[in-house]
């Protein structure tokens, strides 16, 4: 957890800066802010088997062709599970209350295609590619092991945009986050995979 306080502060500052800048960029881009619920899958589920309700994301998209946008996204999802019991470490065993954390920070570029009528509901699909800043932590009693890595990955996505008024909309989408590389804390192959379900607010300029 040694980086967590710094990351929390930086995230808050980044959000303030992002929201401030959006006003200036709004004529060219539209912004999306979402609350993210994440469900671990595969190797990720083996390490933390709890749905995460702690997550938020910021995204900016720009229409470069009719019904097609490019964009950049950043988000932060926190997975946590507290378990009691023993962990086999090969030549021994550790027993105690153990807190397992995954802090995932996807940073990706995206390409999205929209299908609805202009001004109406906009179903869309997209693909995001980039990577994840991944912080895996296990704390047993008063001891802690942490591993910080960058993992390349992608996140196919589908969603709906529901216009509220001119220049604003609600958005819901689902993303499947896949890291192509990765190891767990015992250096065994382990890929970050999880579902992300997002709901939020979208603001745009015409």
């Amino acid at each position, binding site marked *: *957890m040694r980086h967590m306080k710094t990351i*929390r502060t930086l995230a*808050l500052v980044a959000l303030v800066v992002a929201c401030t800048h959006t006003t200036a960029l709004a004529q060219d881009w539209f912004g999306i802010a979402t*609350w993210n619920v994440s469900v671990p899958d595969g190797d990720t589920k083996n390490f933390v088997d709890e749905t995460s309700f702690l997550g938020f994301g910021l995204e900016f998209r720009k229409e470069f062709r009719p019904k097609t946008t490019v964009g950049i996204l950043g988000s932060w999802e926190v997975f946590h599970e507290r378990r009691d019991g023993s962990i086999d470490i090969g030549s021994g065993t550790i027993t*105690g209350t153990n807190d397992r954390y995954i802090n995932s920070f996807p940073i990706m570029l995206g390409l999205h295609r929209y299908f609805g009528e202009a001004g109406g509901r906009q179903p869309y699909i997209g693909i995001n590619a980039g990577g994840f800043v991944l912080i895996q932590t296990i704390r047993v009693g008063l001891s802690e092991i942490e591993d910080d890595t960058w993992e390349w990955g992608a996140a196919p996505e589908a969603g709906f945009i529901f216009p509220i008024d001119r220049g604003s909309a609600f958005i819901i989408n689902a993303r499947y986050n896949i890291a192509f590389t990765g190891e767990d804390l015992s250096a065994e192959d382990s890929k970050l995979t999880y579902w992300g379900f997002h709901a939020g607010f979208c603001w745009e300029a015409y």
Partner: protein
Amino acid sequence: MIRRYFVLGGALVLLAAVIFISCYPGDELTISETDTVVTLFDKNADFSADNTYAMPDSVLHIVGEGDRDDITRAYDADILIDIATQMAALGYTRVGNPATADVHVLPAVNVRDYTGYAYYGGWWGYWYGYYPPYWGWYPYYPGYGVSYDYSIGTLFILMIDPSQPVVGDKVPPPIWIAGINGLVDKSTNAKRIENGIKQAFAQSKYLGEGK
């Protein structure tokens, strides 16, 4: 109109961020939840060949060179009895002469003291309307700090095979080691130490192989 939604959107994001940041999970632990039992063993050791053990009548206190030993001996007797009980349950026989024992069991304790300082920032109007004496705008509630002390204790149990050769001044490494670690708390220490010793042996069933 558009600007209004920018402000709304930004406010929602900031609200979500503040809630998010303040809800970071798992930072709280009770005293007993700090307890950890770690056991490690030598993969080349043949525990089935060991049937007898020798153990001193006291617990070694690990203190820094020149430091005063202020670790309490209040738990020493219990520690020795608990270890002897667990060794007997695994099928080992205690012998008085270390020279005739298959393994030596050495208990040792270390306690480290820590001091921390927590600072709470000032809040404007934090108590506003909360308690009757403070109806209205309560003046600046100043920040304050509090220092705290805590100690972390570790009980080590080492099992050494005396038949392993001593090379130079190097003592042979233990073939089994247990570390029982947690916050020191006078009201719960005895029970937590007992539970820790039980757990250390419970997760090391290989010590009883062949007996």
